[in-house]
């Protein structure tokens, strides 16, 4: 008798599940089965891959500018080169946050934008004429920061032009840096197009190794480490007590750190909102995911809170002067106040957003307490 009852319960339980299966996709208003594959497709097809495509094209333009400059070093070719460098560097801020999959494998960010540049190492490399840019010891001697030093490292443009005139080593170094950038980013772009896009989209589950969870972790890591700390916190002396103005991004140029930060902030907010790389159409995103969850939660509209704080942070940084100038103040109060607004976003995405989506940051057993 007991066995019969037990069997009945099991059968009923199975029936309850399978009968719902047959009913097909349920569309009750409270259903928050957010479609993660649509989210991953939007990220891959509309944001990440067009981003890499654009960056590789930009980098190729930069290579042409370097070739032209090397052929005839002059004020005119230097100006063109500097402008192209700035455009490419700005484009880089749009893709720097996607350090996942192939980019993670090749260490794209580590190889392209580690600053401050090691100026001694760069000079030694050029003087020697022999170096291996793929060595990790050369990471601070290449990429955009090295170009920053080479193109802006002297007070007078004439000195810079003179350095490259009839100096094959220096010219070669410029070429090698851009070749390195192009090779790495092309490799990442191709890998996305050939294999990784499908792997990425297919891994649409929910676990620490699922694409969405990984991406969110990487996204937060980028915001906290590279945007917040790297571009503002460390130069501002937040972690050391004294400002380190030599640690701003594009230090030798000296005037564009703020612009690069703001571009990075835009990229982060656009990613949050699922804004397409080309054109600005919005697709499934962290923001729409939060909206879907909020309809059930009936709580605070977290999506709005986060977007508002992005906007507040942006306007506080926009109100600043050049980073280099701000950091001359002791203490750099205005700079630090703007940093505080950038900082406020961290708990919002790292605690509130992640908690709402039930995405875990580290893996081990838990019993929820």
């Amino acid at each position, binding site marked *: 008798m*007991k*066995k019969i*009852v*037990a069997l009945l*319960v*099991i059968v009923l*339980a199975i029936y309850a*599940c*399978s009968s*719902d*299966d047959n009913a097909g*996709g*349920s569309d*009750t208003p*409270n*259903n*928050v*089965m*957010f479609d*993660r594959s649509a989210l991953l497709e939007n990220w891959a097809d509309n944001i990440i891959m067009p981003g890499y495509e654009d960056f590789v094209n930009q980098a190729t333009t930069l290579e042409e500018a370097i070739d032209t400059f090397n052929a005839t070093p002059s004020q005119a070719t230097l100006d063109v080169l500097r402008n192209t460098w700035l455009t490419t560097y700005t484009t880089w801020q749009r893709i720097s946050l996607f350090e996942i999959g192939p980019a993670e494998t090749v260490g794209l960010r580590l190889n392209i934008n580690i600053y401050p540049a090691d100026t001694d190492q760069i000079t030694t490399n050029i003087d020697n004429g022999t170096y291996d840019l793929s060595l990790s010891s050369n990471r601070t001697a290449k990429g955009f920061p090295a170009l920053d030093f080479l193109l802006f490292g002297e007070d007078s443009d004439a000195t810079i032009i003179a350095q490259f005139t009839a100096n094959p080593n220096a010219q070669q170094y410029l070429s090698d840096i851009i070749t390195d950038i192009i090779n790495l980013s092309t490799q990442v772009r191709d890998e996305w197009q050939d294999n990784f896009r499908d792997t990425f989209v297919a891994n*649409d*589950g*929910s*676990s620490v190794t*699922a694409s969405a969870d990984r991406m969110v972790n990487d996204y937060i890591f980028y915001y906290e480490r590279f945007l917040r*700390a790297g571009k503002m*916190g460390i130069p501002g*002396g*937040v*972690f050391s*007590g*004294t400002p380190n103005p030599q640690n701003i991004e594009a230090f030798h140029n000296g005037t564009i750190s703020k612009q690069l930060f703001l571009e990075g902030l835009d990229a982060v907010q656009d990613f949050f909102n699922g804004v397409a790389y080309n054109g600005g159409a919005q697709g499934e995103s962290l923001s729409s995911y939060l909206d879907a*969850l909020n309809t*059930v*939660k009936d*709580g*605070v509209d*977290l999506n709005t*809170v986060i977007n508002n704080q992005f906007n507040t942070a942006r306007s506080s940084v926009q109100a600043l002067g050049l980073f280099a100038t701000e950091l001359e103040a002791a203490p750099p109060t205005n700079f630090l106040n703007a940093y505080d607004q950038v900082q406020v976003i*961290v*708990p*919002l995405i*790292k*605690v*509130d957003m*992640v*908690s*709402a*989506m*039930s*995405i875990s*940051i*580290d*893996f*081990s*057993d*838990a*019993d*929820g*307490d």
Partner: protein
Amino acid sequence: MTRIATYLNTATEAAPLAVFRVFFGLLMLVSIIRFWSYGWIDKFYIQPDFHFKFYGFQWVQDFGVYTYVLFATCALSAFAVTIGYKYKVAIISFFITFTYIELIDKTTYLNHYYFISILSFLLIFLPAANYFSVDARQNNKANGHIPKWSIDSIKLLLAIVYIYAGLAKLNSDWLIEAMPLKIWLPSKFDIPFIGHLLGQEWAQYAFSWIGAAYDLFITFLLFYKPTRSLAFVMVVIFHVLTRVLFPIGMFPYIMIVSALIFFDARVHKKIINAFAKALHYPKNLLKTTERIVQESPNRWGLKHTIIAIFFVIQIVLPWRYLLYPGELFWTEEGYRFSWRVMLMEKSGYAQFKIVDKVTGRRFYVDNSDFLTPLQEKQMSFQPDLILEYAHYLRKHFEAQGHQNVGVYAEVQVALNGRLSTQFINPNVDLTQEKESFKHKTWITPFKDEIKGI
């Protein structure tokens, strides 16, 4: 008094306790092997520069690379318990090594580790290797009867765990908001068969209410013979579901196996006979038809006093939170050791500001310089860990030559779907605060209210 004396002298068959011992030992052995194979010994106990200590157990240290020896001893003890070889020594050794491991770092505290610690403590006093064990075989004595209280004490411990876990769910977040399941379940959409249901509100409420009812009543259903088999089916379904839905390791299996103790000896003898056959265990040692006459009547002794005190503590400890002001889920004062399981989606973000209190020079700490990701995550919403870390930071920076060091914590915590709010008073220098059982006045009071137990 006579009733107690009679009860102490009531004997019962030893098979259920023997089966319990075998499964308990086996699962512990598997747990340790699993823990080892994941590389967690290194990751949680050897790598960290710093361990969070339980109050009063600051003296417990890891042994560096020799921590593996500690785990190996624990595993060997579990194996000896399983086969019932030198049982007394084995179970004492298991209790000490396992508990020691748990005391090394508070970060990894889980209710089910605590459960294993106290269960193995209780097992020290129970004659679990009288029957179907290497010990019994070496004595060559068919000792098929044991005092009834020894099996009842395990049932009582299970009852405490379940009922307190159920009582803890009787709060407004769990029952009225279906929190935190409303957050956790929808993210499990990719689970076969039921995944698509988990995003629906009714399912979240059903899981919450059924879960609470299950915890509250399952021991009674297991106790009452007519409902026992059905109850056991429910135990299996419930714990398998929790295993599928949440990363809770070995705990579900332990609870499933533990629930077997409620069945009468017939079932257990069937299990033992199956094992015995495979192991060529002498049949005459398994006979229980002849009643063993006890040589001297069982009197109340030290053993019984210890067990009685043990249970009084178990029953009282979960209520200690009533002595503290403020919301328990927020302050966590009196939260541990109380079977409050799966009740909170709580996470935090903590920044520590080091201030030279004379010059006013200040800077923030990069927590990843000092803590592992798991430590940082656990620290960021538990006040006692925050305080301990603050003191650690003071010592670290003083050793580096900083002077007049003040440590201030800026912490944001989100609890059960509420927007994150300030958790610690950012104007309090934590180096001036001492750890104690007193209420921590520097916790910012909870903004909302959670009604219930």
